[in-house]
């Protein structure tokens, strides 16, 4: 899938005195269908949702998430890293229940 499916931002925040961290914001494009909703013709819309989200920092896993159907449509996620520096690469990948997947990389600024 193309990278249009995910928008990402990773920014170094805070200062030396209070401690700094990198805030990563991710917005995915996904229907997150529960399998309980019906379409206009009264037919059930099959479940279609992201099950796994993995984030890495320079190739090392920092976050592993398992999701159910209760995450909202077009999932939004923020997480924080204390181990990242400016110029580091953060990568996020999702896998859904129908075998679709998408990956996006971003450089910490």
């Amino acid at each position: 899938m193309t990278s249009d499916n995910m928008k990402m931002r990773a920014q170094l925040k805070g200062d030396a005195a209070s401690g700094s961290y990198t805030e990563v914001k991710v917005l995915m494009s996904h229907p997150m269908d529960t399998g309980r909703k019906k379409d206009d013709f009264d037919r059930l819309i099959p479940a279609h949702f992201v099950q796994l989200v993995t984030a890495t920092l320079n190739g090392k896993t920092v976050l592993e998430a398992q999701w159910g159907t209760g995450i909202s449509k077009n999932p939004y996620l923020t997480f924080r890293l204390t181990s990242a520096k400016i110029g580091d690469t953060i990568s996020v990948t999702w896998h859904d229940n129908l075998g679709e997947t998408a990956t996006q990389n971003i450089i910490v600024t």
Partner: protein
Amino acid sequence: MQRRDFIKLISGAFALAFIAPMNAFAAIWNKAAFETTKLNEAEKNLEINSEKLSQEILITLPDKAENGAIVQIEVKSNIPNTEAISILVEKNPTPLIAHFKFSNGAEPFVVTRIKMAETSDVKVIVKAGNQYFTNAKNVVVLENGCG
């Protein structure tokens, strides 16, 4: 080796070769915990036996949600050695929403948006070492967001 045994062996090997990679992701996803309709069953499937109430788990949620389809939640754990955070909505058709595991310098902090079917407690469970801690916040939901 008999012909019959040989065929069994070959078909078994084929099955493994094709099914194993397909199930690689399915194996990580805790199907039993996510598909159950009962909160205690979900916890059991996450291997949570006992949990202690903790005010060191900070949950930010609105008091009232107009639309249950999008409810923003922020969770921060001040419990040392927090490894994982689970989010459950007691009265949703399937209570377990998400399970986050942190490693290599990720803070025990997460913001996401969840669906809520009706007014309910939102329960957060933190794993730290071999211990589990919990906190909850009630959200009044005006419109079902679990269609």
